[in-house]
């Protein structure tokens, strides 16, 4: 086990290399998925509001606050 982590004396280079790669990819995946979900949720909200406003167009009393 310790031989595996020691990597013939090069463990101090091999594990950081793979560690950096793992961290960079993990952050990229997380950030990308998070941004997609957030934007699509915001868009769905906005689209749900829009038709109502369109129907209400011209009716000054129904002007809502500035949604999301």
């Amino acid at each position, binding site marked *: 086990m310790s031989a595996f982590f020691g*990597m013939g004396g*090069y463990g101090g*280079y091999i594990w950081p*290399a*793979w560690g950096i790669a793992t961290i960079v990819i993990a952050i990229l995946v997380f950030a*990308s998925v998070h941004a*997609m979900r957030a934007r*699509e949720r915001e868009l769905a909200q*906005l689209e749900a509001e829009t038709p109502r406003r369109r129907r209400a167009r011209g009716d000054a009393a129904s*002007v809502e606050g500035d949604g999301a």
Partner: protein
Amino acid sequence: MLLHRYANPTRFLKLANAILPWAAGAAAILIGAGLYYSFGKSPPDYQQGETVRIMYVHVPSAWMAMFSYAVVAVASAVGLIWKHPVAHVVAIAAAPVGACFTAICLATGSLWGKPMWGTWWVWDARLTSVLILFFLYLGFIALANAFDDASRGERASAILALVGAVNLPIIKFSVDWWNTLHQPASVTKMGMPSIHTSMLIPLLLMALGFTALFVALVIVRARAELAARRIRALRSARIHRDAAEGVSA
């Protein structure tokens, strides 16, 4: 005109959403198998010893760094020439993914160079041209976001991507054209690859896994970008409408 620019790219999304689960699944399986071969199955190299295991992440990320840039450049060209709105979206989605692969390539190369070459970094042709690639990605991302008018940003960044594409052959052939510390290609050269199958398998598995990951990430990021554009379009439409209502009231 506005309709064309913000046209809902339904066909693209339909195709992208059909591909996404397959790409993500393939990435997980291929990278998993690649890790197993990288650490379990492949032997230490007779010269590099165990540090050869850094190669299984370094070389595929270097390939992906260049492949991603090619995607950014081609998509930018399509966007500029045919004014296809989705092309710019793909370029903008791919650039940060390519930048990450380039960063991984540089970091892992440095961590391999220290024990094997005795230095973290040298300003030789290969290393310098890959560093320039990284800055090209950063420049592209910065330019794409530098304008209030998104269409100006995507045009400016697309032009940068095309100009920077001359760097790709420079990276590829730098090891042949100049005397560099970096060794020349052993896999992508004429004739048979000059590395043993036990090392070729993890390399190819990781490379295929990274390619699948790239596809999945570009789709996810393109969806985010398309949603952001729709939000902007709806917001500006709402402002115009509110202004019109304000006048008529």
